[in-house]
């Protein structure tokens, strides 16, 4: 049995995690950590959270055997955890229901969020609308350009989208700006972080709100195949869908693969793979693997998928890498696009580009494994938001 009991009281996952922020935010984080600790074992909070997951989000999401795709590959059987079927189209909603509810229990009526692909922004805007809260979403101008449908959705849901033009105008900069705004409004505003990154308590909090994915998947796959799967695969940007799937399996004899975005290729420098190619540092409030130069300046991340385009990663993934419990592998833009096409063609499911990275890695694994092995892939989101972007790329490569 794998001995695993993280984080510690102050949010450390081994040498990773912690709280590294300016003093103005420290009291708010200490308050959030205390509130989270209190409510995560509070019966009425949990009842409300679970009821919303069931009746609003539409949980449990199914586990589906991708039979035609598996047969085509001719190796291991591929199963999909269908987070794409969750309300608002991705796993992100599990976390925003949890955090927005927590904000409500703490007596706050304003939430802010950062977003890359827009999926977390949409999920936050959704739950803010549900709970009657004011909502501001910070988004890089580059991503606003790439993800118009989600920008329009957020507007319709009543959220204000704040364009961020500093830096590269992507997720990292949106997070910087959200933190700056939070410093200003910290007294009455709750910051809903979209992934298992950021200062304590966010990494543990988001994991706890997302672990429902793995809890469900564990039961469902047992019902379907009578045992646990051989391999779990999930994509890792910040890493919340992967933590959600992996966490309930950590003590099991199950292989785990976290898939990072290798962009144009891990050797080109144009990628978003801190666990495969980064070094340890502190960004956005916690210590973890980062893309940085030798002076500690943060490098630009690049991926075809705006949701993976982040130079850092959740600290718990850094620990799981060091412990050797999860294997982290890179998948390029091209491989992801190919998987995107294949799932659409063979199963009638159009996956998000993020999830396509996980799928691409699963396809590689499946090819080298026997037919009685089972690979469970977290299909973290649906591809509607990526259609225009992906089709443009596919059009270019097939001409």
């Amino acid at each position, binding site marked *: 049995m794998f001995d695993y009991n993280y984080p510690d009281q*102050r949010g450390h996952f081994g040498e990773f995690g912690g709280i590294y922020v300016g003093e103005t935010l*420290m009291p708010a984080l200490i308050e959030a950590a205390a509130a989270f600790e209190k409510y995560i074992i509070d019966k009425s909070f949990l009842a409300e959270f679970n009821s919303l997951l069931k009746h609003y989000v539409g949980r449990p999401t199914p586990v589906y055997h991708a039979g035609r795709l598996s047969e085509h590959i001719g190796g291991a059987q591929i199963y999909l955890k269908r987070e794409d079927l969750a309300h608002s189209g991705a796993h992100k909603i599990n976390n925003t229901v949890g955090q927005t509810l927590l904000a409500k229990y703490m007596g706050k009526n304003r939430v802010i969020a950062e977003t890359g692909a827009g999926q977390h922004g949409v999920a936050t805007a959704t739950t803010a609308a549900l709970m009657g809260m004011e909502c501001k979403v910070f988004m890089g101008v580059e991503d606003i350009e790439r993800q118009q449908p989600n920008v329009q959705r957020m507007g319709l849901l009543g959220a204000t989208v704040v364009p961020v033009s500093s830096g590269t105008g992507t997720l990292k900069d949106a997070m910087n700006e959200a933190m*700056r705004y939070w410093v200003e409004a910290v007294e009455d505003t709750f910051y809903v972080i979209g992934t298992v990154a950021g200062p304590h308590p966010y990494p543990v909090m988001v994991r706890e709100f997302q672990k429902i994915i793995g809890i469900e998947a564990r039961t469902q796959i047992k019902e379907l195949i009578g045992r646990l799967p051989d391999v779990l695969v999930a994509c890792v940007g910040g890493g919340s869908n992967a933590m959600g799937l992996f966490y309930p399996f950590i003590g099991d004899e199950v292989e785990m693969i976290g898939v990072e975005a290798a962009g144009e290729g891990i050797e080109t420098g144009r990628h978003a793979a801190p666990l495969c190619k980064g070094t340890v540092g502190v960004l956005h409030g916690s210590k973890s693997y980062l893309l940085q130069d030798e*002076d500690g*300046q943060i490098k630009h991340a690049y991926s075809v998928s705006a949701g993976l385009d982040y130079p850092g990663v959740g600290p718990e993934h850094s620990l799981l890498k060091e412990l050797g419990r999860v294997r982290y592998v890179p998948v390029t833009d091209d491989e992801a696009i190919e998987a995107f096409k294949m799932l659409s063609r063979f199963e009638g499911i159009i996956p998000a580009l993020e999830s396509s990275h996980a799928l691409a890695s699963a396809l590689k694994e499946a090819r080298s494994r026997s037919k009685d092995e089972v690979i469970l892939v977290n299909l973290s989101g649906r591809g509607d938001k990526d259609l225009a972007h992906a089709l443009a790329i596919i059009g270019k490569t097939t001409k």
Partner: protein
Amino acid sequence: MNRIEKRFAEYKKNGRKALVGFISAGDPSVEMSKKLIREMIAGGLDVLELGVPFSDPTADGPVIQRSSSRALAAGVNMGVCFDIVRDIRSYDADVPVVLFSYYNPIIAYGERFYEDATAAGADGVLIVDLPPEEAGELTDKWPGNELVVIHLIAPTTYDERVKLISTASRGFLYLISRTGVTGTGGIDIDGVGRYVDRIRRQTDLPLCVGFGISTPEDAFAMAGHADGIVIGSAFEKVIEKNPDNPDLPKIMGDFVRGFRGALDRY
């Protein structure tokens, strides 16, 4: 006693208020930066906060973000910052120099940080995103105690934390005047005064107030409560307005004299 502690002890004795100034190291260029600092010290700057540029300065507003980008574009890294400190020591043996940094550039510099910083002549560090709870992982390994660690206190800091922070600090405490990032809004003198007085009851460390002080009048008014004032964005605005002006050092020196004069009138 290191230079910072010595200076504040002296000022306490003769009732003088300290003028603490921040500029980003190497903004707009390394050579100009050295000249600027020399003129600022000649103009009456008491403590220099030398900003180590960082790509993602989340605690700073647009003015300091831009100055940080200019410094990075000018090729500044920790080594260049040490070089600037050495330059200061070539003509001034006494002025305290505090390295003002985010944590990541210090982690990246590695284990020789303490030795190299003290050898260059730096006296303290103020690491914006390193709270006392986490600071031990850096300072526990330091081979000496020549470099002091200055922590920040914010209006949101409750009393129990004030105790924790002042125990972890030496030199002085940096009181952030308002919740918000640097260089935004003005300053509510009475409100900040009450807050300084509240912290004063809990520590013997000298208290310097920063964020939102942009005129000699603000400085004069704050001198009634604090042991020193910190100017950052206002200095950076002067640099930003005169990027190619060869008279920039003189303009900056005169600007510093304005604040010096106000504090000396107190």
